[in-house]
């Protein structure tokens, strides 16, 4: 029997007493424990996920998200795809027509200005083009409506339109309906899925596709976004325009009854529709140039690297990628400055913090406690107060300058400029971040037994050699931990550079804040934030490779 057991152990997997494989048996035994542990941390985990990971994730996602162009101008983007911007020719008439219809709907939904400001990040001036066009886009459609209504007064009535377009007992084109639901939903960032009492007639969609489409767009918008019944209301002026345009060539032979009668009357209306390229050029001559079309085409994809390119002072062009014009290149410089200044701050924290941490770790308890309170005191003071205090200290009429002048070291006329520049930022941030350096250093130094120094001295080392060869190497994990902490904190610091940094001492985070709250270019802000995060992770990785993260101790 024992022989058989032994053989099992040698040849196959080890079995538990009841014959199940030991691994499974162990996993089963541990599952409950793990489940209970997970349950215990579940509230915190969910809290962290919901309030931390998800918002950051969605923020970062904004850096590549670019569906606003395709959502606002779906038809235009589609038709523009085949146009070659480098050919030097304007897009085809069909693109202009699509743009007219898309822009009309966007203007009705008041979404065109949003698109304008999005494209304005890439090409300044486009914002006003869209705003201008939105205002004038319905001129032509209004004329068309007037012409139709004066010739066939029945069209003044919304119910006429409804009867004309609604499927009723006929076959409905449900594909068109759901497509328009999708289109309006994407335009308005909503689901556009509310109930509605309308389905486009399949027959009409065959004979008058553009009109049916426009009417359905309107009906969906009216029902889901405005919450009104399309059956009793007048459609957008776009619908009569589409009708008159299509009737010029439409074959009405398949129709009978009221519809045939109405449309035959309408067909008789004589309304001249100029080419849409002329219509748009009338609204704003810029539509007659390549530039807006080029911009739209370049930035029409749903995901874009454009924000990231902007974040490193480059931009997307029809030919590929290019640097921004010289005068707009500030972000790379700002990144570089942020990194260099963070390093300077980290180094000065090491230099100032090391002796203090050493004292903390080696003084008798009573004195060390007093010193610890002094180290922690700044923590109990508001960050804003500490930063403002530096303003008082460093400004030209401030305490330090006054003392230097009084001592005669500095001429009254040439007071030192120590604030609103990089010097001010470095001084204030070193002071603010110093505890984050001292505390990890201290906790590591505390674990270095004094017997090491004694051993080194007994082996013949002088005080300096003993320190440098024995104590210092063992305190490096503390320096490492403190440096990572201070560096990562300072690279994303905002408030202190904002207050004492002036223009030359600001960090990349101040730029991010500007784009979040002032220019509202969240995509660029998100891209800058993502790059910052990537840089920190990269540095962390390098640090791990060089020093080893196991060597970092916080206590």
């Amino acid at each position, binding site marked *: 029997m024992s022989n058989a057991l032994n053989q099992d152990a040698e040849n196959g997997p080890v079995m538990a007493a009841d014959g199940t494989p030991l691994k499974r048996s162990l996993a089963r035994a541990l599952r409950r424990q793990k489940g209970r542990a997970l349950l215990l941390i579940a509230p915190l985990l969910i809290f962290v996920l919901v309030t931390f990971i998800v918002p950051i994730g969605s923020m970062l996602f904004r850096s590549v998200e670019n569906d606003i162009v395709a959502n606002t101008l779906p038809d235009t983007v589609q038709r523009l795809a085949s146009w070659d911007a480098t050919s030097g020719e304007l897009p085809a008439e069909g693109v202009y027509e699509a743009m007219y219809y898309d822009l009309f709907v966007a203007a009705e939904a008041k979404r065109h200005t949003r698109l304008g400001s999005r494209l304005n990040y890439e090409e300044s001036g486009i914002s006003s083009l869209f705003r201008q066009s939105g205002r004038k886009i319905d001129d032509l459609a209004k004329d068309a409506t007037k012409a139709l209504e004066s010739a066939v007064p029945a069209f003044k009535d919304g119910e006429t339109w409804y009867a004309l377009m609604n499927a009723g007992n006929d076959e409905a084109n449900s594909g068109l309906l759901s497509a328009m639901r999708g289109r309006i939903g994407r335009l308005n960032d909503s689901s556009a899925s509310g109930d509605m009492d309308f389905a486009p007639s399949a027959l009409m969609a065959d004979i008058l596709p553009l009109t049916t489409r426009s009417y359905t767009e309107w009906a969906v918008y009216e029902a889901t976004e405005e919450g009104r019944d399309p059956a009793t209301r007048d459609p957008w002026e776009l619908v009569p325009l589409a009708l008159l345009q299509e009737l010029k060539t439409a074959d009405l032979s398949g129709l009978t009854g009221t519809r045939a009668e109405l449309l035959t009357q309408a067909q008789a209306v004589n309304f001249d529709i100029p080419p849409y390229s002329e219509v748009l050029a009338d609204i704003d001559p810029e539509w007659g140039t390549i530039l807006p079309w080029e911009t739209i085409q370049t930035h029409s994809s749903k995901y874009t690297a454009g924000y990231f390119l902007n974040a490193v002072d480059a931009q997307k062009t029809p030919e590929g990628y290019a640097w921004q014009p010289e005068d707009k290149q500030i972000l790379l410089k700002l990144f570089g400055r942020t990194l260099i200044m963070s390093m300077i701050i980290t180094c000065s924290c090491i230099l100032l913090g090391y002796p203090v941490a050493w004292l903390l770790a080696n003084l008798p308890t009573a004195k060390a406690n007093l010193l610890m309170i002094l180290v922690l005191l700044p923590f109990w003071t508001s960050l804003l107060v500490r930063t403002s205090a530096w303003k008082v200290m460093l400004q030209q009429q401030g305490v330090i300058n006054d003392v230097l002048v009084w001592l005669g070291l500095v001429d009254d006329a040439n007071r030192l400029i120590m604030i609103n520049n990089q010097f001010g930022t470095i001084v204030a941030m070193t002071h603010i971040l110093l505890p984050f350096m001292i505390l990890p250093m201290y906790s590591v130094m505390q674990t270095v037994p004094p017997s090491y120094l*004694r051993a080194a001295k*007994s082996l013949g080392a002088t005080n300096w050699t003993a320190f440098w060869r024995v104590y210092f*190497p063992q305190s490096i994990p503390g320096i490492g931990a403190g440096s990572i902490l201070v560096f990562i904190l300072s690279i994303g610091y905002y408030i202190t550079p904002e207050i004492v940094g002036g223009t030359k001492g600001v960090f990349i985070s101040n730029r991010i804040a500007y784009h979040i709250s002032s220019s509202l270019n969240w995509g660029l802000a998100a891209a800058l934030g993502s790059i910052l995060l990537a840089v920190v992770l990269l540095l962390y990785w390098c640090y791990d490779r060089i020093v080893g993260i196991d060597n970092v101790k916080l206590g």
Partner: protein
Amino acid sequence: MANTSTDAAFVEFERVQKSYDGVNLVVKDLNLSMPRGEFLTMLGPSGSGKTTCLMMLAGFETATHGDIRLGGTSINNIPPHKRGIGMVFQNYALFPHMTVAENLAFPLEVRKIGKSEREEKIHRALGMVQMNDFAGRRPTQLSGGQQQRIALARALVFEPELVLMDEPLGALDKQLRETLQFEITKLAHDLGITVVYVTHDQTEALTMSDRVAVFENGRIQQLAPPDQLYEKPENSFVAQFIGENNTLMGEVKEITNGTAVVQLDGGDLIDAVPVNVSKVGERTRVSIRPERVEMNKERLMPGAKTLKAEVLEFIYMGDIFRTRLRVAGSDDFVIKTRNAPDQVRLTPGTQIEIGWLPEDCRALDA
């Protein structure tokens, strides 16, 4: 350097005192003199001042008063790194960020010894402790015993004449401790180095040392070779501290040519060697080692005084039997007998008579 004969004092403490707080003396009037090549152990309970003495010798503490001399010169004002004293620490104090070889190279590097000579010395020192295969390891990759060997090799690698050891075997298990005790002693004698060894383990002190200084309350209570210390304790502290000991309280009745008659508190009279009792009527603590108590009357001298005893407990310990008796009103009188074929195993309740040679019974201070 001229007259460094073995007789001359190599290490000397003269009227050394040490106080940390200016109120209490940790070391009181310490006088000690060691010849070259001696293995001296400072033994004592914790807080008795032995480690402080070692630290003063190493230079990590300064004497409040008195003179410490090494090879005839006072070293009071010489910093530790210039004293050239090897030291082995309680927690080994091997530098964790260096390999074993780098640890050993450290004292040689600070002495600016060339690379080839350095390597040779490291090799030799590691060979002494049979650790040559471990030169490339880090201290954390070694077991406690191995670390201790490396610490020893590091203290010896720069060939100091004096090596200090501060409870070096305290953290090791019994078996390893015994092996290393033997090795350290052998190494010290082979190399002819002078060793000051601090421990609170009396077995260690007895087995390793040429002489043992028993510390208590900042003073040396007795400084003697192990056998004398064990067999001829000079006061009751030493008798109690070293080995197992039976004590009986009594009063000196008479002292005649080297023998004292003591009346125990139970009324019985016994013979004892007067050690630090001088006059009749003095209270005394009589001390007898458990293995020197005899139950076989035939082996006692004719006319020797005996005491009645009742067996309370018999403990079988393998090599020996330990029997607890009630003697003269004391319930913890212990005798040890060898586990020999003819040895009787006493059962509790048995009444026996015990006695001893008068020279094994010492009348000490009360």
